[in-house]
């Protein structure tokens, strides 16, 4: 290869290099904002994905790749108007190297190719701040989509344990459902209330109102079971007594007097009344059986029938007590039974607002809103006095004075004159001076210097 050919090849490579670098930077200047837009969009998508807890990572990456491709093509379409042609690159290179357009002349065949120059690859200086700024901003926006904390209400709710009172009530009702002597409908009524409390959001399960409601439900359930058990015992006792009397009278061939039968029927009627009302009631079958036992029916009732019915009622009562006995699993008596006994005995109520609760902590806070309060204190206005006017803020009322305007009705003196002509105006001069702005006057002075 001759020297001329070597030079030609060298300069053609140099021209292509300049062209390539300029066009790459021109494209990058348009692509960088696109990268920023894509990064921001991806960051937003990832952040939104974390908030709504939808795993769409694969789709987002795919969309991001697509957006990058679109941005690259758009940047190319916009930037290509500024791309250097071969002539531009050659002109730039030969002008920078101050070689008197030797490359253009040589390419046209009008001169020899210039000698090679070590500076041919150093004619461009890249200032990367602009492009890098966009790229760094894009990375920051993208990373923010992963690093920005998601608000607490959007965090996954961890299942929490139900309040103890509610859990115990549910346990009771579940056990009661196994007892055939108890009406399932009455159990269902209590269960529906328990379900309603349990369906509240986890974060409000332990709110003050929820705990109060759970306590109230447990208390009602305990009282209902206690009442049911007592009525079962009462009916069992009456029927057992009736059966014993029948057995003892049968040995002497005597029969129960009408007075005794009437008393027993009254006792059973009272027990039936207790078993038919309240939050928990006896089963329909049992109530119907007891309902039939009026005085005449009792007369016909054999000792064996009475004993069998008494046994049935006694087992029901024990079953209910057994359910209640699950509460403590120990020697101590059920707290609910204790409460019921105390309330029934007219003792001092132990659940007093503001004095704490034997079941859980201190109970209600001493401060609470009272719906009966009529005076909200709205008429007791208070103001802040500010004697230091230097610290007064806008809107502060500094003072009010009550008084009257002192107007002198005789003070009017009629029209008065204002201003006077001191000398004749020099119109031409004034117009000349006033028509020019200071900058123009200055420029005019300079012009005529």
């Amino acid at each position, binding site marked *: 290869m001759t020297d001329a050919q070597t030079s030609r090849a060298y300069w053609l490579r140099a021209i292509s290099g300049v062209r390539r670098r300029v066009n790459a930077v021109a494209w990058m200047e348009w692509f960088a904002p696109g990268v920023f837009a894509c990064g921001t969009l991806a960051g937003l998508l990832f952040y939104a994905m974390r908030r709504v807890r939808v795993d769409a990572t694969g789709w987002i990456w795919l969309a991001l790749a697509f957006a990058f491709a679109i941005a690259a093509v758009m940047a190319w379409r916009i930037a290509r108007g500024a791309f250097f042609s071969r002539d531009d690159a050659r002109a*730039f290179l030969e002008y920078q190297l101050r070689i008197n357009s030797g490359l253009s002349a040589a390419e046209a065949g009008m001169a020899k190719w210039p000698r090679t120059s070590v500076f041919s690859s150093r004619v*461009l200086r890249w200032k990367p701040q602009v492009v890098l700024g966009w790229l760094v901003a894009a990375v920051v926006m993208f990373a923010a989509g992963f690093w920005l904390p998601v608000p607490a209400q959007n965090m996954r709710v961890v299942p929490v344990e139900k309040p103890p009172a509610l859990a115990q009530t549910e346990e009771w009702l579940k056990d009661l459902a196994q007892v055939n002597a108890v009406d399932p409908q009455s159990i269902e009524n209590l269960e529906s209330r328990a379900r309603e409390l349990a369906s509240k959001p986890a974060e409000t399960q332990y709110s003050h109102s929820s705990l109060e409601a759970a306590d109230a439900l447990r208390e009602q359930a305990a009282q209902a079971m206690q009442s049911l058990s007592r009525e079962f015992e009462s009916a069992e006792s009456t029927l057992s007594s009736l059966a014993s009397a029948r057995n003892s009278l049968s040995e002497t061939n005597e029969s129960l007097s009408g007075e005794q039968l009437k008393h027993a029927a009254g006792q059973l009627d009272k027990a039936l009344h207790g078993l038919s009302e309240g939050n928990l009631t006896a089963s329909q079958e049992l109530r119907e059986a007891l309902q039939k036992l009026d005085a005449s029916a009792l007369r016909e009732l054999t000792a064996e029938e009475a004993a069998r019915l008494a046994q049935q009622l006694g087992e029901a009562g024990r079953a209910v007590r057994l359910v209640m006995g699950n509460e403590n699993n120990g020697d101590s008596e059920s707290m609910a039974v204790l409460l019921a006994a105390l309330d029934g005995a007219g003792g001092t109520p132990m659940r007093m607002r503001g004095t704490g609760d034997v079941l859980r902590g201190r109970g209600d806070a001493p401060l609470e809103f009272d719906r009966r309060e009529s005076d909200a204190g709205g008429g007791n206005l208070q103001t802040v006095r500010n004697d230091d006017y230097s610290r007064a803020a806008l809107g502060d009322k500094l003072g009010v004075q009550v008084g009257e305007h002192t107007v002198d009705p005789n003070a009017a003196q009629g029209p008065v004159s204002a201003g006077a002509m001191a000398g004749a105006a020099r119109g031409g001069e004034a117009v000349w001076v006033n028509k020019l702005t200071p900058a123009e006057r200055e420029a005019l002075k300079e012009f005529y210097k």
Partner: protein
Amino acid sequence: MTPSTPTLPNDAELASASASINRLVIALDGVLYGQHELIELVVAGVLARGHILLEGLPGLGKTELVKGLARTLGLDARRVQFTPDLLPGDITGNPILQEVDGRRAFVFQRGPIFANILLADEINRASPKTQSALLEAMQERRVSAGGETHTLPDPFFVLATQNPIELEGTYPLPEAQLDRFLFKIEVRRNSAEVLQRIVLNREIGVEPRVEPVLAREEFTALLGMARRIHMPDTVANYIARMVTATHPGESAASAGVRYGASPRAALALASAAKARGLRHGRGHASFEDVQAVARPVLAHRVLLEHSARLDGATPAGVVEKLLAEIPAQAKPLPTSLAAAKIK
């Protein structure tokens, strides 16, 4: 019809031409001390077959330079001192009634314009009518008088001078006539060192001895060679963009410009750039050539708004800004790329 492609001067011709021009420049350096740049421009202007307007204070050697140029080139030179009462016929010539072959007839008496170099001293003192008489001669290199057309000698140059400080009794050259001058060159005063050299080597009233350094034929060959210098497309594009950018709204530098340069300015730039290329022994013009001659070519062709002049703007300043604004390549660099400074 396709114009024939001129033959490019070969290396030997270029070297010879460069040496000849160098001799000319050296000779003129001996006539006018300390004005090398001015001399280079005048030589380039003459090689480009252009008319030159020299503007400067009295006594700076403008007339001396022109006379020296005429002598070094061995050309016929005439000098006309322009005055307000100068008539067109005093320059172009007048028909005079003469007896020819026994009968009277008007015979055209040639004026001082019939020379290779016309030194029009203080051209702005002549009336517009007289100035306009130069128009046809400068552009078409011929004179029409009495229904006849008289061709001026070849080569023909007008080298005019004007004094910028005296305004009384002067007639500023109209734009059309200014446009016909290839260069308008400002002649600056000399430094103290140059003045000392002048004091030591010159006497008042004694003209410096100047020997011809180029024969007329040699000079004519140089003029022809200057036209055959190659103008690369990129440089032609640069000239076109430069001239376009002088117009209002075409560039940031043209703020305050009322009228930009004409297409004749582009031709002038190209011719002057070629002449400078020849001066430096190159067979082609370059960006550097264009930039070197842009100021004297464009400055007198750019007309500023009155407000811009009040703000201190000058046509020369506009051209300086243009040179800084217009890149050699047709498209600007991307904003994050800059041209590196090559030492």
